[in-house]
């Protein structure tokens, strides 16, 4: 079997499959569940300065097995209460990455500092949620702000910082370059794409927030393009996210330039068993294609002679 353990952003991961932020990440027990199911690491729900209930329901629209639309509205218990959940996950031995979202560099830095004290091994900055006023992609699509926020956070915490990049931007690779300049240890890409569903019988948007974010297989080709373009622009490692449902999908992301990946929506379609299955598929596929290690596949498609 091919070697699945990877290093990414200075973190040792037992395999490259991370639980994406916002999926199973609100409770410590769920983080443990994902870890036990075989995730290489778990990323918490994005945590803010104060408790947020999120938007009213409906917050989800699902399209068969190829896509999912959500506008949860960043519900989270707030940075004061959340550390108890992380403690549970760390207690079970999980590799935990803490995700935070803020409205400006100072808030991000404060949150990251508090998150760093919980014992997480890295911080992911949600610069990319497409449906939260004053947060996420509203600030994350401006390279100047991205650089400033990443710099403030890297100064405030001794941990590797991962900037999560939005695809809802003219030049996602430019945002990754800004994060690199700011001192990010890695970037993750992509978050969801701004999207909408309308109920024609009721003549209204389905989600209470109207606009939401599209995830799932539908966005995999878009995530791959972002990772590809980022790889051509930056030298820090990339974590690929978006629509991963199989070991083959993971390998596509690795070959496009990713060192690790995050898996989200597939958990809704399949359950947490997705981690074990995808890990097995990846291992077998690497083996059959002659890769001794998952890390050997990173960027492999860039070197193909045309």
């Amino acid at each position, binding site marked *: 079997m091919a070697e699945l353990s990877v290093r990414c952003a200075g973190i040792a991961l037992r395999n490259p499959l991370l639980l994406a932020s916002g999926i199973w*990440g609100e409770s410590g027990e769920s983080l443990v569940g994902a870890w036990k199911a075989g995730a290489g690491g778990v990323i918490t729900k994005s945590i803010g300065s104060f408790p947020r209930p999120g938007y009213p329901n409906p*917050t*989800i629209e699902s399209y068969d097995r190829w896509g999912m639309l959500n506008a949860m509205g960043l519900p989270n218990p707030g940075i004061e209460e959340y550390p108890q959940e992380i403690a549970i996950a760390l207690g079970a031995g999980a590799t935990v990455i803490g995700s935070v979202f803020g409205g400006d560099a100072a808030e991000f830095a404060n949150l990251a500092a508090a998150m760093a004290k919980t014992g997480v091994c890295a911080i992911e900055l949600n610069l990319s949620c497409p449906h939260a006023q004053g947060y996420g992609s509203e600030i994350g699509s401006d390279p100047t702000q991205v650089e400033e926020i990443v710099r403030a956070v890297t100064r405030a915490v001794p941990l590797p910082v991962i900037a999560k990049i939005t695809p809802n931007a003219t030049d996602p690779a430019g945002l990754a370059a800004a994060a690199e300049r700011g001192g990010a240890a890695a970037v993750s890409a992509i978050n969801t794409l701004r999207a909408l569903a309308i109920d024609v019988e009721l003549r209204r948007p389905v989600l209470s927030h109207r606009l939401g974010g599209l995830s799932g297989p539908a966005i995999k080709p878009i995530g791959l393009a972002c990772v590809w373009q980022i790889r051509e622009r930056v030298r820090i490692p990339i974590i690929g996210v978006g629509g991963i449902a199989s070991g083959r999908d993971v390998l596509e992301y690795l070959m496009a330039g990713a060192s690790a990946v995050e898996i989200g929506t597939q958990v809704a379609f399949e359950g947490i068993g997705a981690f074990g299955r995808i890990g097995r598929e990846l291992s077998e596929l690497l083996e059959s294609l002659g890769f001794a290690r998952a890390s050997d596949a990173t960027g492999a498609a860039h070197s193909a002679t045309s």
Partner: protein
Amino acid sequence: MRTIVTVQERVAETPSTVTLRFPYAPAAAPGQFVMVWIPGDDELPMSLSYTEGASKGITVKAMGGTSRNVQRIETGTRLGIRGPYGNQFDPSPKRILIVAGGSGAAVLAPGAERAIAGGAKVTVALGATTEAELLFRERFATMGAAVEVTTDDGSAGARGYVTVVVEPLLATHAFDAVWSCGPEIMMRKVALLARARGVASYGSVERQMKCALGMCDACALGPFHVCVEGPVFSTEKLLELPEFGAFKRDPAGRRVRL
């Protein structure tokens, strides 16, 4: 993923509870729930109080804003329905004690009907604050269950919480299974009584629900997601969880006392 249905029948069951019936074809089992979208308001998880055939039903108790608004819904109103989701009560035991508090009867009635249709003997311990709030008292009687009633104010049946009749019932009758649904403090008590008597026991629990797809973590209960692995659990499993009967999560995911 949602089907827009039109409410075809509305029954005011008690002063604080209404049943809405609507055509919805997908097969459902007693214990399962649907997500009910009240356009312009909210989307709530609701157990199906009528699971058989194409005319499904929900029975909603006025708790807060939305469930209060639901009381005013008239026939002709359109709702968005998705589901059914979650697991079900196993209707195969032959002697079943059902313990229903508050709107819990809504969850348990279709299971009782299916069990009786399958030849089971069903006893129902039905509790409410006051006589007028006893939910589905008639329905349980009509389907052939033996019904024991309690009210907090003593206006009907025994005075006190429904658990006051559960202990004597367990002591005097043999049951193969206990099913309960109601306030968790009550369910916890029933679970302990059943365990003391060595009777298999199942409870339907409620948690915040947003996605109902096992993804968002809103309904996390220990290692479980109520929307997928519940809402029906063996109470032996529930009793192992520190939060059972003790706390739930609010919409922000904070742990709050029940």
